[in-house]
């Protein structure tokens, strides 16, 4: 069934508007001293009980960061960020390294329950496919829950280990699988890649680590749920996914934060490595607090995500639904090294009120017969500004490379903006690059047509927007497609007067 077929029920269950993930959990926290210097880097490394090589690695990144300037080439406009006015480490006191779900602070479990994130596990037998939960009808999903600077719980770890799959917090992987971490950390996004990546390398705290062994098809969706809770705190998560030869994995991340007047920084780095014939599907439903209607508060989401398709016929597919954050700056990319490797980028970005998004992708074709597809849907409402920025680069040896790009923008109201900035660099005569772009507006006659058939104005907008995003939403895992549609609707509430 197409995801869109579920729109109706979904939309109708949403009756309380606004940002409903904006609550704060009252829990005793441990902080690093405010500000950023070498001692803070050492503090974080010591907290995580890291080996010397990793501390050195962090310090090198910090030294690099100090020489770099914050990038200002995106279309987002915001005041200068004071990097000394923030905490770089914040963790609930009670939950350092819980061994099992039973040891997790009940206050945290309550928080995740309130967010609709099921952390409890359901048994299923070897060789029998998992079945939907009797209560919710959902398929079980393995979840790593990251709360501010620490991973507080990871579910289904033992079950996944039976297939040789490693799914845990990256801080744990540093201890338990140092050889894998050392081999791959920074191999896709090096320390000096860009200002925010360098910052992340210096002060990253937690995130997920995934390793799928040769020939294994991961039996369930893997997911990380990021939650910023503490005040004046930045979140610097680091995620590393390695899909060994012939393996397959689908991974999803979600994110929320309390409503606050201050801007909070989220600077993540995600690295994916796909070896021969491996497939990684990485989906994001990004719902950080977007700030209020006047643009006060909200998360600065400055993220570096990159995949290396190292192996022949490897494939990485990025799907993102970006509804939150005051500012979004992210370009999930694919380096297509392996012969016949495939990169895909499917994106929906919504900006309402005063939100700004500058997002897109980079497809770097190095290997022969590499193929990439980009489908971007930007929706602007209120005073929102939405920019698609994308690079397609075809190297001289990428004979037979192909790219198809489609960028569509939808405008709601007359105070918002949509911008499309495609860069195409082709150094190969046999490559084929296509780019299509459209900009449209929700027409008054479309709304009236829907309302004449009994739909409320908000439902009509939701339906038209979901129709516009259909090509992207159908790429999401079924379990999350419904969630995403709901979000689109909520994000646009009040956008049509």
């Amino acid at each position, binding site marked *: 069934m*197409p995801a*869109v*077929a579920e*729109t*109706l029920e979904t939309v109708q269950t949403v009756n309380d508007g606004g940002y409903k993930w904006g609550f704060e959990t009252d829990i005793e926290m441990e902080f690093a001293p405010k500000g950023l210097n070498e001692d803070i880097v050492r503090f974080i490394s010591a907290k995580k009980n890291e080996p010397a090589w990793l501390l050195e690695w962090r310090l090198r990144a910090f030294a690099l960061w100090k020489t770099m300037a914050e990038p200002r080439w995106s279309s987002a406009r915001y005041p200068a960020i004071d990097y000394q006015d923030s905490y770089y480490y914040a963790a609930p006191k009670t939950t350092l390294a819980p061994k099992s779900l039973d040891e997790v602070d009940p206050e945290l479990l309550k928080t995740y329950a309130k967010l609709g994130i099921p952390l409890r596990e359901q048994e299923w037998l070897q060789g029998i496919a998992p079945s939907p939960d009797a209560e919710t009808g959902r398929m079980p999903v393995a979840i790593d829950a990251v709360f501010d600077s620490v991973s507080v719980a990871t579910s289904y770890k033992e079950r996944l280990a039976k297939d040789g799959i490693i799914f845990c917090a990256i801080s744990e992987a540093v201890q338990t699988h140092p050889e894998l971490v050392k081999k791959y950390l920074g191999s896709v996004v090096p320390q000096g890649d860009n200002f925010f990546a360098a910052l992340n390398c210096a002060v990253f705290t937690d995130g997920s680590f995934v390793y799928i062994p040769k020939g294994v098809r991961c039996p369930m969706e893997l997911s990380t749920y990021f939650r910023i809770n503490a005040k004046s705190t930045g979140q610097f998560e680091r995620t590393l996914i390695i899909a060994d030869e012939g393996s397959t994995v689908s991974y999803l991340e979600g994110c929320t934060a309390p409503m606050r007047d201050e801007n909070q920084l989220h600077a993540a780095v995600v690295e994916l490595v796909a070896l021969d014939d491996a497939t990684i599907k990485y989906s994001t439903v990004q719902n950080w607090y977007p700030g209020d209607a006047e643009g006060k508060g909200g998360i600065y989401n400055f993220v570096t995500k990159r995949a290396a398709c190292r192996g022949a016929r490897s494939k990485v597919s990025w799907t993102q639904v970006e509804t939150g954050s005051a500012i979004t700056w992210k370009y999930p990319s694919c380096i297509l090294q392996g012969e016949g490797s495939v990169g895909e980028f499917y994106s929906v970005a919504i900006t309402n009120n005063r939100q700004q998004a500058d997002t897109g992708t980079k497809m770097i074709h190095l290997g022969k017969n590499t193929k990439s597809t980009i489908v971007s849907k930007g929706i602007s409402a209120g005073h929102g500004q939405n920019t698609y920025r994308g690079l397609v680069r075809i190297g001289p040896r990428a004979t037979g490379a192909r790219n198809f790009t489609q960028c569509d923008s939808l405008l709601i109201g007359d105070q918002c903006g949509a911008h499309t900035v495609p860069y195409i660099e082709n150094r190969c005569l046999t490559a084929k690059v296509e780019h299509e772009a459209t900009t449209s507006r929700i*027409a*008054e*006659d*479309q709304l*009236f*047509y*829907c*309302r*004449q*058939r*009994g*739909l*409320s*104005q908000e*439902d009509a907008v939701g*339906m*038209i927007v*979901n*129709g*516009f*995003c*259909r*090509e992207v939403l159908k790429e999401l895992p079924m379990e999350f497609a419904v969630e995403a549609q709901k979000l689109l609707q909520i994000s646009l509430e009040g956008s049509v007067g």
Partner: protein
Amino acid sequence: MLRIENLHVDVEGKRILHGLSMTVPSGEVHAIMGPNGSGKSTLSYVLAGRGGYDVIEGTATFDGQDLLAMEPEERAAAGVFLAFQSPVELPGVGNATFLRTALNAIRRGRGESEYDAMQFLKIVRGKMAALGMKDEMLKRGVNEGFSGGEKKRNEMLQMALLAPKIAILDETDSGLDIDALKLVADTVTAMRGPAFSALVITHYQRLLDHIVPDRVHVLSAGRIITSGGPDLALKLEAEGYAGVVKAAA
């Protein structure tokens, strides 16, 4: 019963309806005929509640409810259906999703239970078969890439599905071949009954060969200038609007 009294309507500051009055009792089918620019489409949009049509004076009630005070979706829930002259496209919105959403919204408005996907499919397939529509029309985007005839069929499908108390057909016959025309007429005819009325707005008499109206009204320069039985349509066809308008003046 639809009752319109002394309706004056402006569009962009220009007076289009000049004191229009008419009544369509429940169970009857009335036709409105008139030359281009006489205000036919304005009347249908005002009754359905489209924005940009300013009611300066007068009233329109349906079964005693003040239509003009209601939102478009409230009018739809009250049983007012407008078959559009040029139905819009909703790209990417699946026709099945749209039809089910609309049907359930209307049913909710009426205090009836909603249909789940299976119940809905059964009902819609039955209606589609009667209209000679193929199943794949459900999977396509709403009116997306539909031919003129397919769009009108889709309008008739919605009318049959939503089962309104009053259907306003705004020149639904324009651009249709004789087979499609007959299909529109058959759909309306099949719905005729004591609880259903229709306002058939048309430029030509030919649709009225198939939908025989109880009353025919002639609209000219924003008001009804004469009314009569079905034979009035035939007279118009024979003598043209000019003669009738002149005689009424």
